[in-house]
């Protein structure tokens, strides 16, 4: 059995580690490229969302390299993501590939199926061993998230351009070598210290932008044209609304991000009072939280025709108007070009700079208390 999986941010890092622990033979599909996207777009339905097309491209490239088993996440809806695996299985079968598709259902909704799917991945291992391996790999991926978060906070202040990106690579290498739990703990400390040792100029003028939106676009640098590095090099401090381990993890506290799902839901309530699947409510809620935390603006990323994000996109202009808070929505699909994207971002950044100069800040319509790391929302008016 040779297993392959789609790319999404550093999920490759997590799965590589997990499969090594489980003694499973795996193939990493070639990194995302224009060829991947071309393949995916050719065979996927026209109106399917962009992540389906790109991950389909990954699968085709993985199968061409000799894989015979595919692993993909499932879901319980109402976001389309839950049906990706089945749709892709049918498309690939129609193309004549022979393979087995292992669908990993979310552990909260289908605990037995979740374990069963990993039992299929590693039939020789005991369930206890599998569970342990998942836990350790998960904690390693969480360290990776902390590194990414730190990088976003350091890059705008770096003295020597490009040093943060270089140091990040070193930090990842450090973490990559760690295998035992104690080693991971040590690697975490070393990696974060390494990042802290980057010379920084804290006096530099900088802007603060929050990134919200659909998880695949936020996590996968190839499809968002490495937006984080692009903005970081423009001296912009970034905070992201989605981290891999927060998203796949069982806790609703979001330990990496630091803002819990409940707080987000509460913040979104006046504008979106019900969950709508995917990251729809998170996008709305987090935008409001960013506004209250004194950010200069928010950039919202979404794939073309994404249903939950489209609901958020319909609501964001109203929030922008009410709170006097700049929000830029960027819609991505296979037609998106980098040049057009950069022009739009530059214009947006210019707007934020001119607002800074005029001393404009978002309105605080409703009372909010912000204490240290935790955010408490009080006195929300029900509309």
């Amino acid at each position, binding site marked *: 059995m040779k297993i392959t999986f789609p790319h999404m941010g550093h999920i490759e890092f997590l799965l590589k580690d997990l499969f090594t622990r489980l003694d499973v033979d795996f193939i990493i599909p070639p990194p995302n490229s224009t060829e991947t996207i071309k393949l995916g777009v050719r065979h996927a*339905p*026209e*109106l*399917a*969302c962009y992540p*389906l097309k790109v991950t389909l491209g990954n699968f085709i490239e993985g199968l061409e390299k000799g894989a015979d088993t595919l692993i993909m996440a*499932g*879901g*319980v*809806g*109402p*976001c*389309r993501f*839950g*049906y*990706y*695996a*089945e*749709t892709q*299985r*049918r*498309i690939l079968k*129609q193309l004549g590939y022979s393979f087995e598709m292992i*669908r990993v259902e979310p552990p909260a909704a289908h605990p037995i199926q979740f374990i069963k799917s990993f039992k299929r991945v590693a039939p020789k291992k005991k369930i206890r061993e599998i569970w342990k391996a998942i836990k350790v790999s998960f904690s390693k991926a969480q360290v990776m998230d902390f590194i990414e978060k730190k990088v976003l906070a350091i890059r705008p202040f770096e003295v020597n351009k490009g040093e943060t990106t270089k140091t990040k690579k070193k930090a990842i290498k450090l973490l990559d070598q760690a295998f035992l739990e104690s080693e991971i703990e040590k690697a975490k400390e070393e990696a974060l210290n390494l990042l802290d040792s980057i010379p920084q100029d804290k006096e530099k003028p900088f802007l603060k932008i929050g990134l919200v939106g659909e998880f695949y676009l936020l996590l996968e640098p190839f499809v968002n044209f490495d937006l984080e590095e692009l903005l970081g090099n423009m001296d912009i401090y970034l905070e992201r609304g989605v981290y891999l381990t927060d998203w796949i993890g069982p806790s609703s506290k979001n330990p990496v991000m630091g803002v819990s799902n409940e707080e987000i839901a509460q913040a979104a309530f006046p*504008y*979106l*009072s*019900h*969950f*709508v*699947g*995917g990251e*729809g409510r998170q996008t709305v809620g987090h935008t409001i939280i960013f506004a209250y935390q004194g950010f200069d603006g928010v950039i919202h990323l979404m794939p*073309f*025709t*994404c*249903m*939950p994000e*489209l*609901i958020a*996109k*319909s*609501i964001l*202009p*109203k929030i922008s108007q009410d709170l006097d808070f700049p929000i830029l929505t960027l*819609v991505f699909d296979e037609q998106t070009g980098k040049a057009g994207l950069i022009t739009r971002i530059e214009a947006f950044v210019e707007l934020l700079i001119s607002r800074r100069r005029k001393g404009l800040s978002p309105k605080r319509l409703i009372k909010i208390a912000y204490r240290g790391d935790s955010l408490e929302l009080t006195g929300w008016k029900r*509309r």
Partner: protein
Amino acid sequence: MTTVGIPRGLLYYKYYPLWSTFLENLGIQVVTSPSTNKKIFLRGLNTAESEVCLPVKVFYGHVLELKDQVDFLFIPRIVSVEGKAYTCPKFLGLPDMIKAVENTLPPILNPTFNAKKGIREYYLTFYNLGRKFTQNSIKIAQAFLKARKAQSTFNRNLLKGELLSDILEGGKAPNQDNWSGLRVGLAGHPYNIFDSYVSLNLIKKLKEKEVKIVTGESVPHRRIEKETKHLPKKLFWTYEKEVVGSILYWLKEKVVDGIVYLLSFACGPDSLIQVLIEDESKKFGMPLMPLTIDEHSGEAGLVTRLEAFLDMLARRKRRK
């Protein structure tokens, strides 16, 4: 008298008898927007986000058409209509989307229907809605029962094979019991199929061609469950499950000669179940024509495709 407006779009085509009977029995005058016309259509297109699916854009148009005529707008949030499935995310966020777009709207009644919470919660949703207009609990209970009855009569008539548009708009269905001509299964969402402006008069065109139309509404719920139970992955959208289930039923029972599958542009769930439907009908050797409609669709192109498809079906039938 208090007036409540029900926009003629989206789930109006599924639950209008239920909603209108309930409200009318509370002594409320129910106002429904007129059938979609060019004005409504264009207003919707100009107001909604450009990538939103076509039926939601049309719904915006109906809301704008109604907003100055009524005291309240009735836009429920329908989260789930059966235990293990949701509706489309758009229905979950619909009231919020509408609120965000217009500042001059009358107050919106948006009861949340969530079947996952059980029958008690279902009644309480109606009860809380009714309490906004009357303090009389018995009156609310009676209105609720009458509404349920109206809805089940409506559903029964649909099962008999009457067309939804004929029931809601009061047309007369021709007697087609011993039909020997072509039978075409018309699959898709009722708010696309039965909105004659959106579907470019598809039903009328099929009737003119002397074709018996069979829609998903006439397939019993039991059969839909049975056919979709064995899918490798269960569908978690109820309305899409109905579309898939009725197509699988037609494929197995061979009650139709061909299937026209109407999709609207940018419909999320449809884009995925399209793969499933095309795959399954290929296995059964059933002719299937997916028709995607959007705001730029022209009637002439539709007619050409439809005629070619029907000719092909007639040829197939003769050969048999």
